[in-house]
C-alpha cells in the first residue's frame, strides 16, 4: 500500500473494529480513522443485557481499553455523524460541517431497530435497546421484578428476555411477523418455539392484533397495551424488537447502489471502487440465490469486517457465510440460535 493511505471506517461495531485490526495488521503505515455517532469506544452490544446483571459501568463492557486506539494509531471520532460520502472526490462530510478526505472507506454502520409503521405513533411510549445508554435507561425505568413487554421479539430481544427472566424481571412477548427475526420460521414450526419460550417463563401473547399503546392508569404499571379483542397487557417498559433496518441514509447521495442495504459484490465492494461495506448494513450478492441478501450474527459480521479489510488492502476474497443460520431447540428443549453465538 502507498504510505499514509487513509482508511476510514464508518461505524465501530464488530465489523468496523475487526476491519481496523486487519487494516493495521496488513498496512502498518496507513492512517485509520474510525467514526461513530456513539460517545463510547467500541463495546460489545451482545454484552448489553449484562446491565441487568449488575454491570452498570460502561468501562466493563469495552472490548479494548481506550489506550488501544492510541497504541494502534487509530483516530477515533465519536459523537460524529456522517452526512455524506463522496466516492468520486474521496471525501466525507460530517453533520458538524467538517469535510475529510479518504482513500478508501468501509461502511460498517449496521442497522437500527426497525419500527413497523403501525407502531410509529407510540414511539414515545417505547424504549429501544441498541446502545449502552438505552440499556441503562430501561434498567432505570424498571422497578424490581418489573415487567417488560416485547413487541415482536427478534433474536436480540429474546436474548435480553433470557437475562431479564434470570435476574428476576418478567417478560411478556407480543408475537408478530418479526418474532424470531432474522430466522425465518415456518408457520408450522412457530408453535414449538413459542412453547419453548413459555417454558422459559415468558408470557406469550399471540393472536390478537395490537390496537394501541398508552400510559398506564395511576397505580398501575407505566404502560398499557390494548388489543383488538379488548384484552389489555400491562408493563413497566415496552420494547419493540422487530429486526434491524440498515443505517444507510447518509449514503443516499454517494452514488453507490442501495436497495435496503448497500449492495456489494462477494468481495464486499460497493459499486464505487473506493467504498466497501461490512456487517448488517450490506446486502451481498449471492450467485447461488441469484439475489442480494443479508447475513446476520456476530460471526458473520466479524468475518465481513475482516474480508472487507483484506480486500481493501489488495486481496480479492469473497465473503463466505460462517455456520448454520437455523433456529433450533437444544437437547434440553431450550431455544438456541447461531445468532447468539459470539466470542
Amino acid at each position, binding site marked *: 500500500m502507498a504510505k499514509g493511505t487513509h482508511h476510514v471506517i464508518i461505524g465501530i461495531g464488530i465489523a468496523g473494529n475487526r476491519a481496523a485490526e486487519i487494516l493495521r495488521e496488513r498496512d502498518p503505515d496507513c492512517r485509520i480513522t474510525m467514526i461513530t455517532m456513539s*460517545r*463510547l*469506544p467500541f463495546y460489545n452490544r451482545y454484552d448489553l443485557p449484562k446491565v441487568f446483571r449488575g454491570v452498570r459501568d*460502561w*468501562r466493563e463492557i469495552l472490548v479494548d481499553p*481506550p*489506550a*488501544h*486506539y*492510541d497504541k494502534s494509531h487509530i*483516530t*477515533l*471520532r*465519536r*459523537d*460524529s455523524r456522517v452526512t455524506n460520502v463522496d466516492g468520486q472526490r474521496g471525501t466525507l462530510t*460530517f*453533520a*458538524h*460541517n*467538517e*469535510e*475529510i*478526505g479518504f482513500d478508501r472507506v468501509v461502511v460498517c454502520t449496521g442497522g437500527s431497530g426497525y419500527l413497523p409503521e403501525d407502531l410509529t405513533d407510540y414511539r414515545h411510549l417505547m424504549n429501544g435497546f441498541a446502545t*449502552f*445508554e438505552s440499556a*441503562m*435507561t430501561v434498567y432505570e425505568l424498571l422497578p424490581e421484578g418489573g415487567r417488560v413487554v416485547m413487541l415482536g421479539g427478534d433474536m436480540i430481544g429474546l436474548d435480553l428476555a433470557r437475562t431479564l427472566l434470570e435476574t428476576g424481571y418478567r417478560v411478556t412477548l407480543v408475537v408478530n411477523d418479526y418474532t424470531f427475526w432474522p430466522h425465518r420460521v415456518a408457520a408450522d414450526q412457530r408453535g414449538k418455539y413459542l412453547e419453548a419460550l413459555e417454558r422459559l417463563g415468558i408470557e406469550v401473547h399471540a393472536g390478537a392484533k395490537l390496537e394501541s399503546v398508552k400510559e398506564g392508569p395511576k397505580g398501575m404499571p407505566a404502560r398499557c397495551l390494548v388489543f383488538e379483542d379488548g384484552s389489555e397487557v400491562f408493563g413497566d417498559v415496552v420494547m419493540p424488537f422487530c429486526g434491524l433496518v440498515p443505517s444507510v441514509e447518509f449514503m443516499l447521495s454517494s452514488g453507490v447502489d442501495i436497495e435496503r442495504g448497500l449492495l456489494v459484490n462477494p468481495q464486499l465492494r460497493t459499486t464505487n471502487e473506493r467504498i466497501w461495506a461490512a456487517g448488517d448494513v450490506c446486502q451481498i450478492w449471492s450467485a447461488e440465490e441469484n439475489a442480494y441478501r443479508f447475513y446476520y450474527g456476530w460471526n458473520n459480521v466479524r468475518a465481513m469486517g475482516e474480508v472487507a479489510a483484506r480486500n481493501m488492502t489488495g486481496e480479492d476474497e469473497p465473503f463466505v457465510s460462517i455456520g448454520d443460520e437455523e433456529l433450533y431447540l437444544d437437547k434440553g428443549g431450550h431455544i438456541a440460535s447461531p445468532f447468539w453465538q459470539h466470542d
Partner: protein
Amino acid sequence: MDSTDLQIIICGSAGDGTIAAGDILKRAMARAGYKVIAFDLYPAEIRGFGKCVARVRVTTEQVYSLKRRSDVLVSLDDSHAIEHVGEVRDFGAVIFENAPIARLGEGRHMSAHVKPGQIPYGLAQREVCERATSSSRSRNIVVLGFLAQMYGLPVAAFHEIIADKFKTKAAVVGESNIRAFDAGFEAAGAYFKLDDVTLGPPSHVAEGADTVMMTGNGAVVQGCLDAGIGTFFGYPITPATTIMERLAVEMPKAGARLLQTEDEISAIAATIGAGYAGSRAATATSGPGLALMVEMLGLGVMAEVPCVIFVSQRGGPSTGMPTKTEQSDLNLAVFGGAGDAQRIVLAPTNVEGCYRCAGKAFELAEKFQTPVVILLDLYLSNRYETVVFSKDNIFEPNCSKGVKTQDPGQAYQRFQLTDDFVSPRAVPGEAGGMHTVTGLEHNELGRPSDSAEMHTRMSAKRHRKLEGALAHPDLNICKRFGDEGPVDVGILAWGSTFGESLEAMMAAQAEGIRCSAMKVVMLSPLPVDPIAGFLADCKEVLVPELNYEGQLANLVSGQLGRPLSRLNRVTGAPMQVEEILEQVRALAKGRAAA
C-alpha cells in the same frame, strides 16, 4: 460521594464570553457554599482574536492551587480549545459545538481530538441559544446550563448570579441570559451522563457576609480600604490596573482620594508626597512601572516616608508578556534603586494573604517610616478564591510614632537616632514639627550632611529600624507546614507558587516522603533565623520559582550560604504541582540512594 474536587476549563476566543462564563460559574459555586479557586488567561488584545481560558476548581476541602488535569473542558471555540483537550483526565468530559456554521477543514473540529478515554458531548450551543433568545450571543450561558444539568450544579445560585451580573443593564438582558441558561439545562436532559465527574454537597453553608470570593487584586483593595487608605495615585498597567479601577469606585465613598497620574514616576512621587503629608498613601504597578519608580523609591527610603507600592509581576523584561504570570521582579523589589536602599517587601501567597499584607503594609510603612512593597504576580492578582474574613477590622488605624512635646527652643530632630532606630515623625503643619527633608544624606535635623560618621550612622538606622518588622504582630513573615523535625525534602517557596508547593508537599507525604514546606512572605528584611532553622531540618531543599535563575534561591543562599536545588519555569503559566512533586521525589530518591 461526599468530597468534591471538580475542575472545569472554559476555553474560547476573545469576545465569546469565556471569562464571563467562568466568572458566573465560580460565583455560583461559591454562593452555593463550595470552596473555589479560579484563574483566567486572556490575550493582550481586547477582542476579535486571541485565546481566553477560564479555569475553575470547585472543592469541599481547602485546596491551594489549580489541578494540572481538569475534569471537564468546555469549548466555545475549537480553534483555541483543541490544544487544551489533553488537559482533561480520562473519563472526564469534553463539551463542544456540534453544529458550527462555518465549513471546517479536516481536523478543525473538537471531535477529531477528544481522547478515547474522554467523553465527548457535542452540543448545538448556537442553535439552543438562538431558539431560547433569538440570538447566539449567550451560548456561553447555554453551556453553563448544560453543566448544571449534567453535574447537578446549583441552579438557583446560577440564576441569582446571572441576574446580579446583568442588573445594570436593561431587564431584558438578564431575562434573556436566564432563558439561555435554562435552555442549556433542558438540552442536557437529552444526554446520558457517561463520564465519572461528580459533585458532592458543599462542606459548609456560606454565611453571607463573612465568606466572599475575590481575586488577589480585589483582596488588596479590601485590605487598603479596611486599613484606611487616604490617597492613591496610579497609572494603569496589566495586571495591576484592576486595583486602581476598584479603588476609584470605593475610595470616594470612604472620603479618600484617588488620582490617575500621567505616568508611574508621577504616581510614586505623588504617593511619597501624600505619605509625607501624613496620609496612608499607595500606588500600584507592575514590573515595568516599578522600574520607573525605583529612583523615587530611594527618596522614600532616604526621607523615611511611609508609602505602599503594590507590584503585580508579569512576564518580563521590558514590556515582556503583559498577560502572563512570572515571579521575576523579586530582585528589583528588594534591591532596585541607587544606594543601600533597604525597604520592606512582602509577598502574599494567597488571596487572603493579599488582604492581610495590604492592610499590614500601611501599618509597617507608618511604624517604620519607609516604603513597603507588596509583591504579587498575575496569577495571584487575577485568581479567585473563596475567603473567610473576620467581622472585626484587624488593622491598626494609626501606627505612627508621633512627636513628643518639645522643650521650648529645642529644634525638632526628624531623623533622631533612637534606640529602636525609629524617629519621631511630624507631618507638615504640626506644631513644633518644622524640619528639613531631602534626598541628600542628612543629619538628625534633616539638614544635608556628607560626613562619614553621619552617613554610617544613618545607613545603620535605615537598615536596622526594619528589624522590628520581623516581629510585627498578626503577620506571618514565614511559616512552615507539613512534617515537623528532620525531613527528607523541604520546599521553600514564595508568592503564588506556594499553593502548588503545599499541594506537592501533601502529595509527597502521601507517598511516604518526609516533607515540609515553608512560605516566605517577608522577602526584605529576610527572616533569616526561621529560614535557617527550616533549612537545618531539611536534607534537601527545593526552591520552585517562576523566574529563570531562582531569585529567592539566590537571596536565601546569599544570606545563609547553603546551596539549594532550584526548579525554575518561565512559561508564563503557573507552576504545576506535578512538576514540583517530581523534583521532590527525585531529591528524596537521590538522598535515599546516597
